């Protein structure tokens, strides 16, 4: 009963959020109008105003050419709640400069994906939304560590095994955490003073379908450098599992372990990036770093908060997120009162510069109304995350027509 009231309250918030944002976001208004939705009473109503994840890359590739900057700007405008400086954006010679102009003139810290298939997802996120995202992550880390860890209040040197600058989610997140941390902390990067260039990603990744992982030797050298600088100190590391595991396994084979302080915080997400890692890979990473404070999150470019993973392997849904799963075959919303497996869809009520109502490309199992995770944390949780394309039955189905898996 309590949970039911909770759902009603969430849907009510969703309804108010929709009414407010559709006044400013043209594409949302178009979507709600086409669906005939004025208010959100049920999860079914909600599902009709969710954007497919592909909306944030729904521009034609030709819009990425320098001569089409105005079209790209107009495309982004309809997905964005504030007026964009169209003339200034139109003259940006590169996508990187277009992104910088958005930040400098509109306070939008746009986030982009890795450019699979030659296109980037472009999500117009406000700077304030990044700040609230970092505060949320800090809160979750405090909660899930029982108050033993945080990422904002305790000064720890930052070790980031990627670029210092750029507009990918990882780079933006660490930039924000550093900005919010007082006193300012020292940081080392795999590529210091360098940018994860959107233009370079587009050029290099046109035919690629996997996110790029750095060279393991280069990464080992980077961690050697981190070790010589911060050995024994509590540090903050933001990285993905395959990278961290490769470094850890190389170091452990040389007898190197417990390199940093026991109060170090390791912040990760994105799963294993389709790499088959040994079952004890997290233990190897913990042993190498020398900390038990490892925090893994489920997240994506279109969402501001993140879903922390508890010790039972479940990802807990943040309170600002209204979510459901949909039947993979029919697309209809599955009963929210019961545990169900299906395509994951959510509305992030924290997002107000863009519409954070998304039908994702992931299939998850989502807990029901009265389920409680054994970890003791309240609220819904999800587990067994898989890509929809893999689940939709591509495996061993063969077609002589050029079709997507599961088609």
């Amino acid at each position, binding site marked *: 009963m309590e949970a039911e009231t909770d759902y009603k309250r969430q849907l009510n918030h969703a309804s108010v959020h929709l009414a407010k944002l559709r006044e400013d976001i043209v*594409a949302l208004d178009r979507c709600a109008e086409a669906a005939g939705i004025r208010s959100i009473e049920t999860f079914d109503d909600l599902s009709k105003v969710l*954007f497919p994840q592909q909306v944030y890359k729904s521009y034609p590739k030709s819009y990425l050419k320098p001569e089409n900057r105005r079209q790209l700007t107009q495309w982004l405008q309809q997905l964005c709640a504030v007026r964009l400086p169209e003339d200034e954006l139109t003259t940006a010679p590169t996508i990187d400069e277009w992104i910088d102009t958005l930040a400098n003139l509109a306070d939008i810290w746009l986030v982009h994906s890795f450019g699979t298939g030659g296109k980037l997802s472009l999500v117009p996120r406000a700077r304030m939304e990044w700040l609230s995202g970092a505060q949320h992550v800090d809160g979750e880390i405090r909660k899930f560590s029982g108050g033993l860890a945080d990422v904002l209040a305790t000064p720890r040197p930052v070790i980031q095994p990627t670029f210092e600058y750029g507009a990918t989610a990882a780079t933006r997140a660490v930039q924000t955490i550093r900005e919010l941390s007082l006193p300012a902390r020292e940081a080392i990067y795999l590529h210091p003073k360098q940018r994860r260039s959107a233009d370079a990603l587009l050029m290099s990744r046109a035919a690629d379908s996997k996110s790029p992982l750095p060279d393991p030797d280069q990464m080992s050298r980077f961690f050697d450098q981190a070790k010589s600088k911060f050995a024994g100190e509590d540090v903050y590391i933001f990285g993905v599992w395959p990278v961290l595991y490769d470094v850890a396994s190389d170091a452990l084979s040389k007898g190197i372990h417990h390199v940093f302080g026991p109060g170090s915080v390791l912040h990760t997400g994105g799963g294993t990036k389709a790499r088959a890692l040994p079952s004890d890979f997290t233990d190897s990473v913990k042993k190498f770093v020398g900390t038990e404070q490892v925090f893994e999150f489920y997240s994506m470019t279109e969402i501001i908060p993140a879903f922390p993973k508890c010790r039972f392997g479940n990802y807990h849904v943040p309170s600002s997120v209204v979510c459901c799963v949909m039947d*993979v075959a029919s697309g209809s919303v599955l009963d929210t009162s019961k545990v169900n497996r299906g395509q994951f869809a959510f509305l992030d009520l924290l997002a107000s510069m863009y519409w954070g109502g998304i039908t994702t490309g992931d299939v998850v*199992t989502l807990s029901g109304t009265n389920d409680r995770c054994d970890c003791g944390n309240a609220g819904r949780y999800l587990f067994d995350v898989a890509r929809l394309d893999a689940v939709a039955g591509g495996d061993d189905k*063969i077609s002589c027509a050029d079709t997507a898996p599961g088609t």
Partner: protein
Amino acid sequence: MTPAESMVSGLSKALFVPTLIRGRELAPANARIKTFPGEPVVEAVDVAGELGTLTLSRPEGLADLQALPMEEIVAFLAEVGDALALDRHSRIEAAIANHRQYSNMSERMLTDQFKYIVDLFSRDLLERWIRIARIDDRMNQWHELAVAPSKKPVRMRAVGCRSLHVIAGNVPSIGGLTIIRSALVRADAIIKLPRNDLFTVPAIIKTMVDVDAKHPIVKHLSAAYWQGGDPEVEGGLYNSECIEKLVLWGGDDATRRSPRIGADMDVIVFGPKMGVAIVDLDATSDDELPRLAALLALDVCELDQMACFSPRVIYTIVRKGHGSVDRCKELSRSVLDAMERRCDRSPLRPMLAQCIKAMQIGAIDQVVFGQSGMSPRVLLSLDGEKVEFVERFSRGVVNIVVLQSVEQALAKISIKNQTVAVYPAHLKAGLRDEIGLRGAQRIVDVGAAAVDVSLPGPQDGFDVLGRLCRWVVEE
């Protein structure tokens, strides 16, 4: 299945996939095939322990089939065709019923496909096929080829091989076609069933067994399912000592899980391919539009758009000028109307529905025609680029891409395009060399992509029957 998967699928009764080895059906055993939410549970025999009987250890084991006159091959296949038509033991009926449980193909197309399979086995068609492809001349006797520099004659003949066919399951007739082609070239054939068509080939083979279980063609024909890439099975099978010709349908689809394919086998690859059309709208009068739309709809809707020749993109040439966008919209509406008369209206698969919805919400230069969430749909691209999810199209979804010249359309053609349909038809002769040069393998009139598939001719750019044989030369 995890409890959650089982709960979502809601299906508990397992389907059993027959394993047929050289006329013998193996007793059912419970090797479960990995299935997915919403699909029925399927079981098959684990063939890892049957590799000795599945393969022919020596090539001369084919002597009985090599000695079989072509008339006898045709007579047997025709008799099988009659038995398939009668379906006394309801084998075809059961295959269709099973297929229906996991197929994306409409009821009408499924029934038509099985009728087409029966037609493939007709004496008349087989005899014409043999005559046109000169199968008997080339394959049943030593054939004088040329004179060597020494002035001595050179002769050659084709010999049937031990072959393994990893077939595609998007169109059921592929199984029938594979059985016939193998028989015509007197090959030993093992057919690996795809998970999207587990029942068509077993139904045909069981019917062949009904006709004559001891016939040499039956003795050299097997069908089984194993998980693609299974090291226990493929470790023993993918070996030039027992397989000379490895036929892979769908390219990557067939090889993704099979790292064992070495260079010592002759690997023959079909597809994956996609059809397109080139329409010169400026050369088409307003009165012609309904006819053009009807012909395009015929090509798109045939086989529920699941075939490798099915057009997904219509490159439409309109030189810029007053009203050109309106004409493209008019064509789009006409094609939608024509498809609605021809295709059954059906819900779009979720990922495709999602991509189209994203386009409607976010795209500026694209217009979507048709009912939300349903096929048929026409996606009109005014920016000269095809949409990025054409590989997800099925059951009547087509992308009309507006271009300004024939040259622009030709620049879009690639080796991926098996079939290019052209309108008006008189443009075909002028374009065929250019289209062929750019990689396409078949050029047809719009409206003929499906109706005149030339079985004796090449497919995907090569002479299939020739490739299935070993050519022996006497010098």
